[in-house]
């Protein structure tokens, strides 16, 4: 059994966080999320009818006992994101928030400046802020310093399924971070998720790769196993990579 993850005092047995977009219907979504074992699932506030108890995104998640992580997708600046956050807290009764601000609707790149501004203000207002951001080590330290409960740097452009394209920068972020690091966006295959976990990421967030799979429910299981496997490997110390055979005549033998 792997170590449990703690974010803002909350314990998680599953290190696989999930999204709720792009599924063919709410029934498939619910089954996939249950299969994945996820305990935290994010949903776009703009997509849900917060006052409708039958909402086809909220209800299946609440019924399955999964924690809600509302997100501010659609917000183009700090002001809109803060407003969306307040609305989410009021309507959904949670102060957990995935902060995402992308002024660019084509590539959906997170805005580092507005994200930092909004994060600082939202922490001040008592939110548990998990910001989606670039794999920028300096930005991640700033986000940590203003009080974010975790950082969520991207592996690759959102929805691209390209995997851990930002590997070198994620390694620095993981090395420096004093809050959990959740690799968000770009994870397209279970092997990518396993790789992120082997690197020492505390969790991964996966949406498109599960929702747009031919069989989302089975794919959710594949991701669950990959995340468990990657974490187990990380905790038990991967054997080092050798590019050549170990020298048979040690160079320092003459000292013996």
């Amino acid at each position, binding site marked *: 059994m792997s170590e449990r993850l703690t974010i803002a005092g909350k314990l998680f047995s599953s290190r696989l966080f999930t999204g709720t*977009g*792009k*599924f063919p219907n709410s029934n498939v979504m619910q089954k996939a999320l249950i299969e994945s074992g996820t305990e935290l699932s994010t949903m776009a506030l*703009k997509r849900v009818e917060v006052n409708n108890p039958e909402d086809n995104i909220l209800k299946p998640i609440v019924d399955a006992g999964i924690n809600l992580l509302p997100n501010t997708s659609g917000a183009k600046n700090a002001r*809109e994101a803060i*407003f969306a956050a307040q609305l989410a807290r009021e309507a959904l009764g949670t102060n957990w928030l995935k902060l995402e601000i992308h002024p*660019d609707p*084509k590539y959906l790149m997170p805005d580092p400046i507005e994200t930092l501004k909004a994060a600082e203000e939202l922490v001040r207002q008592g939110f548990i802020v998990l910001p989606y951001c670039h794999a920028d080590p300096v930005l991640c330290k700033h986000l940590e310093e203003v009080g974010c409960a975790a950082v969520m740097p991207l592996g690759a452009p959102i929805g691209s*399924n390209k995997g851990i394209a930002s590997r070198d920068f994620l390694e620095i972020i993981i090395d420096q971070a004093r809050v959990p690091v959740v690799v968000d966006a770009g994870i397209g295959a279970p092997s990518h998720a396993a790789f992120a976990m082997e690197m020492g990421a505390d969790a991964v967030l996966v949406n498109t790769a599960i929702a747009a799979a031919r069989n989302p429910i089975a794919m959710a299981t594949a991701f669950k196993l990959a995340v468990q496997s990657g974490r187990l490997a990380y905790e038990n110390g991967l054997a080092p990579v050798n590019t050549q055979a170990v020298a048979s005549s040690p160079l320092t033998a003459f000292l013996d």
Partner: protein
Amino acid sequence: MTFTDEWEKLNWDDVKLSIYSKTTKDVERALNKPKRDLEDFKALISPAAESYLEKMAQESARLTRQRFGHTIGFYIPLYLSNLCANACTYCGFSMENRIKRKTLNQDEIAQEITAIKAMNFDSVLLVTGEHETKVGMDYFRQTLPQIKQSFNYLAMEVQPLEQKEYAELKTLGLDAVMVYQETYHPSTYAEHHLRGNKMDFEYRLETPDRLAKAGVDKIGIGALIGLEEWRTDCFFVAAHLDYLERRYWQTRYSISFPRLRPCEGALQPKSIMSDKQLVQLICAHRLLNSEVELSLSTRESAHFRDNVLPLGITSISAASKTQPGGYANDEQELEQFSINDERSALSVASAVQARGFEPVWKDWEREFQSIEAAQYEK
């Protein structure tokens, strides 16, 4: 700088010749590239690509699922007025047509809203003819706030306005504007726009620039397919989008594909586009641009819409009435054009679900913008 500057660099006949000179080799090269450009788009809409349609459709479907997943957005047009001071050869609202004219008042709008909300829609497209005095800014100032109370996403398809007018309407809840050039061929444009403000080709051509500068969230462009040789006109649409995306990177874009069909007693298309060619065009747009929204209206038949759904389309209208007051009280003599897919919203939604897609009714939260609007007023 506006799109007019770019448009002037493109010679219609050269573009046309270049499209028709594309070979199967060009098509194969375009298909095998990971990132495509406007030259590839020409190859993909060319006659040479017709035999590659299945391959294009497969790739288009794959790209669309990756970006948009298994979802289809639903919207509905709300016709507010059929009053019009333009004479356009293809339009039922043309001032020269002797039809009953009607502009909805607030009570009538309220009745339409009630009827539309009963069908579950949350995204509405307001449509009017062009009549500056009776259906101009004053009318929009009165009606937008009323309508926005019931819909999270509000789009308009009305006469082109000034940048400051768009900025003002944005504070009243405007999210998107559809403005189709009809044709990018200036003399053909002149043949079909005989009287009224719409005769001004350039003012219309520059409307997306004004919209983007005003900060409107989404801009829809397109050509009325059939007025001119469709391949060339549709290339201009792609070139227009390419220009807009590079210049106004914070705006969302959508493309629509209204096509004129051969029809007794109405304007005959100069260039007829077959179903197969429309599919080719939809796929070519998706292969060029995996992020753009592609929309298909009820001008197309139920059979065509259901089958084309997985290939690249991201939003559809349903249960549309093209006459003012048509949802609460169906009087067909007022309509702009007759629709082809007459199914109810519920039955279109069921057809969408049957194909493995989730109908998306709500995809925006109007509360997001209220602060911004308030700040604008300061």
